[in-house]
């Protein structure tokens, strides 16, 4: 599929939960996650983000994050990778759900982004 989704969270559980939640509404989408630190503690890991991006089957990535270092690590990775990543400063759970639902039915990026706009909070 054209778009894949990457979830970056401080928490392993949040990342897993968001994936499960949005998979229900978007079963055909590639959704990969980077939650918590290397040892599953609260925090973030550039390596996990790298892995989530590498493992994702989307041609382009729609990326969602929660707080501070999730964002910084994601941006760091974006400077390092060749893959096209669109990062959204929106509510993590609600934004990922919105994007997934629309990407599942092959909506174009401008439609997805128009629907993410009201969820911008960062």
């Amino acid at each position, binding site marked *: 599929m054209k778009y894949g989704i990457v979830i970056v969270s401080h928490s392993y559980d949040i990342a897993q939960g968001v994936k499960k939640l949005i998979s229900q*509404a978007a079963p055909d989408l590639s959704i990969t996650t980077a939650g918590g630190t290397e040892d599953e503690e609260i925090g973030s890991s550039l390596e996990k983000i790298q892995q989530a991006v590498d493992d994702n089957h989307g041609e382009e990535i729609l990326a969602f994050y929660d707080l501070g270092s999730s964002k910084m690590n994601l941006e760091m990775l974006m400077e390092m990778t060749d893959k096209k990543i669109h990062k959204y400063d929106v509510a993590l759970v609600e934004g990922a759900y919105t994007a997934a639902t*629309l990407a599942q039915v092959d909506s174009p990026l401008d439609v997805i982004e128009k629907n993410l706009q009201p969820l911008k909070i960062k």
Partner: protein
Amino acid sequence: MKLELTTAKKWIALFVEKLENNMAVLNELDTAIGDGDHGTNMKRGAEAITAAFAKKEPETLADLYKTTAFAMIQKVGGASGPLYGTAFLDMSKAEKSDELELGDLLQIGTDGLKRRGQSDVGMKTMIDVWQPVSEAAKNNQLNQKVIDDALAKGKDLVATKGRASYLEEKSKGHIDPGSQSSAYLFESLIEAIGA
């Protein structure tokens, strides 16, 4: 007209039966414009209703609706749980005070849906079936065509509430799953009254 307890029991029993037989249909409708679980959710609710009646046979209309409401609220797990639950709970409360005309009873249920869902007709939800059915019942004109027309009309709407609303324009042309389960509810009612 007013519903007798035996007729109302038949109503709910037929609804339960339809839900159990049509789980896959409802799931499929929900897969197209939602999260694919409406059939599974409603089947869980249906089984809970059967279990609750087996535990204690309802002795009044108020009892019947309340037991139905609680089963839905406790076991459905999706939006349809609090929605059907509120509709039946409000109907139960109303039956406590006086014997209601069927149309008024259904309107109370519809108003419950609107309150719980913060929604109204035209949003491509089950309300688009409940409201025209309530009105037809008030005029003693509830029949299969009312239900079919409501489903057909709802199919062409763009969803503005519930999960289908995330799809915007793309929700058009699909039958709303909650509208379909509500169609089963009112088809059951027509059958129960006719029997």
